[in-house]
């Protein structure tokens, strides 16, 4: 019984939140990885693209709620997602047309494109704050819980409760669907294969008759989709504040690099490595040991490796460590000069 209690404790505070946050990071990291491999630069504006997508979702959610369009207990934000994805894609394409395209044609160094993406980051960040304001926005409606702690305790008779929020369930399911679709596209369709070919060897892709402009278009469609979904899921789960999305860029880069930049599987693994390390390192194990150790063996203190204040810093520490020890990441990624 005690063992079961301790397991539920871990599931409730580490496994479910870890899977949720990990999925959000993984979707973000996939976006960064795809831009990196196909367009060959580190896109610092990706966090703001996510923010833009979330903002579109929020605005559309408001419109739907105002017009009394409801879908039972299902979150409206998920219903409007296809529309806000389209808005995000259009925004990405506009930015590409007016900003990034020029540097691609000039064959600029990737570090110049990186600095350009910082300009885009500023611009987009300003635009978003201008439209929706800098404040906190909660746009989750519908049923809040899939499983409540109280019900779980009643059901099982355990001391520890297990809670699954709807946002957590939605995040995990939607991420799985999106990732399966993405891998199907990349590995099974002709367009997906040509996109991988283009990222592998641009010259040879051109010789093979692959149209680069089409590849770029598809890259932004995928990036916009991933950014919008990742941003919306994060915003639903936590809450939306434009400011936090700027800070999300670094954990996402961490996930992409830890997994091996340029490798989609790596990006997903990286997302979960980051999310679980954050939780495992900052979790207070006192209660856990309370269940599995005899009373007189229980040490003092919270039994925490690092205080929760350092939660996000953990991702930076892992990032720096990986860069120093194995810059190619867990799964060997691409190194683009």
């Amino acid at each position, binding site marked *: 019984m005690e063992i079961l209690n301790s397991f539920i404790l871990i599931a409730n505070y580490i496994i479910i939140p870890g899977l949720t946050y990990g999925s959000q990071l993984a979707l973000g990291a996939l976006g960064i990885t795809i831009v990196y491999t196909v367009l060959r630069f580190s896109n610092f504006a990706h966090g703001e693209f996510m923010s833009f997508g979330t903002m579109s979702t929020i605005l559309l959610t408001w419109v739907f709620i105002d017009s009394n369009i409801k879908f039972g207990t299902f979150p409206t934000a998920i219903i409007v997602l296809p529309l806000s994805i389209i808005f995000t894609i259009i925004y990405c394409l506009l930015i590409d047309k007016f900003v990034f395209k020029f540097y691609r044609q000039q064959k600029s160094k990737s570090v110049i494109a990186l600095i350009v993406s910082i300009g885009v980051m*500023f611009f987009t960040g300003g635009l978003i704050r201008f439209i929706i304001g800098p404040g906190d926005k909660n746009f989750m409606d519908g049923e809040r819980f899939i499983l409540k702690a109280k019900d779980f305790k009643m059901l099982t008779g355990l001391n520890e409760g297990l809670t699954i929020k709807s946002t957590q369930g939605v995040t995990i399911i939607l991420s799985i669907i999106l990732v399966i679709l993405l891998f199907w596209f990349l590995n099974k369709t002709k367009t997906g294969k040509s996109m991988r070919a283009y990222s592998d060897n641009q010259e040879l892709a051109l010789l093979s008759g692959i149209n680069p402009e089409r590849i770029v278009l598809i890259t932004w469609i995928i990036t916009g989709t991933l950014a919008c979904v990742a941003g919306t899921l994060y915003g639903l789960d936590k809450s939306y504040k434009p400011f936090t999305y700027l800070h999300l860029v670094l954990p996402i880069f961490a996930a992409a690099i830890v997994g091996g930049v340029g490798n989609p599987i790596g990006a997903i693994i990286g997302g979960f490595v980051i999310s679980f390390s954050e939780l495992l390192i900052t979790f207070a194990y006192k209660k856990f040991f309370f269940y599995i150790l005899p009373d007189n063996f229980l040490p003092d203190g919270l039994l925490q490796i690092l205080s929760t204040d350092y939660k996000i810093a953990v991702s930076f520490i892992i990032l720096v460590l990986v860069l120093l020890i194995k810059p190619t990441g867990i799964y060997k990624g691409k190194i683009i000069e």
Partner: protein
Amino acid sequence: MQDKQHIILLFLSMFILISFVGFFQSWNLALTIFNLCIISSIMSLGINIQWGNAGIVNFGVMGFAALGGLANIIVSMPPTAKAWDAGAIFIPFGIIIFIISIISSILVWLKSGLSTKKKYIINFFLIILGYFLMRYIIDPPIKAIEAIDPAKTGYLGGLALPVIISWPIGGLLAALIAYFIGKISLGLRSDYLAIATLGISEIIIYILKNEDWLSRGVKNVNGLPRPVPYEIDLQSEPWVLELTKFFNIPVSEISSIIVKLSYSCIFLVILIGILLLLEIAQKSPWGRMMRAIRDNEVSANAMGKDIKTRHLQVFIIGSAIIGIAGAMLTTLDGQFTPVTYQPLRFTFLIWIMVIIGGSGNNYGSIIGGFLIWFFWVQSEPLGLWFISQITSHISDTNIIKSHLLENAAHIRLMFMGTILLITLRFAPKGLIPEVKR
């Protein structure tokens, strides 16, 4: 000759811009902007020597500036007497133990002939052991220190020395940290280096935010001593009163202008000093070699020039300059507030200054620092004015209008992004291009 005129013209226009603020808004505000312009310029100089001369992408401005701020506390605040009784001496002792465990794990990594798997396992346990040993040693004294009158102190305090000493100390502190960061990360490719330095600077801020015994964390350190007189003391000086009569403005305003002017003078001296040193360095063989390495890393390497050492030198120097500027900023503010260190304001804004001013040109970085800071501050009122102009025909009760006016301040982010993008596209060399020497 053309170039010199161009530079003088730019500085003159900048001067006129700031004077406009003096005439139309207030001289107090003009001087506030001017002082922060100088600090921004010095930070830009620090980035410029790294990026403009050596092609190093340092996104860690925020961290180095904060280290400069920390130097203010360490140097100038009075020591917390009881803290040393509480066992403060154990803290450096514990940290040294952790550092020893890290160093020995590095030695195991580099020198021992074990298999990679064994190395990972040994290092993992070495570091875990060092970490928990450190925690075991330092946790009790930290708890005790943080309990000492937490509303006022609760930290170690400083050495109670004149605050101006903290500026060079801030530079040294930044240089020391830059040495370690550079040593481990300069081999990375430019965008990885950018991300690594950004990550490290975030870690530095997290430490300053959370280690209350060192910096009081989010409780901030207020009331840092000043290198210049206090307004309240000036207000009773006869010569100040006479000035008040002469200019016919309130004594509170004139005293504050005098304080700000004294800061301006000290800052200007430092700015000019750093500028001259950098100019000399760039004209020297050392500077020429630096640019040779930047322009053609491969052939410079083949010529036997030690790129790594050179890059490390330039990384340390640039970071030290940022540390000095960071220390000056905290002194000017009179308080150390870790939460104000944001990458947008400290790292990316400085980068915009360098790019717009002209990468590789010190005068460019200065003008970039002035111009961008000026617009960073002034685009808020400008944005408000702009929005109220275009919405002037809409009634005041309109929701859209009030919403636009409310968020007008955020136009400045869009504005900064736009001028960065326009510069990169149409004038990638910046306002004052690099001089081909």
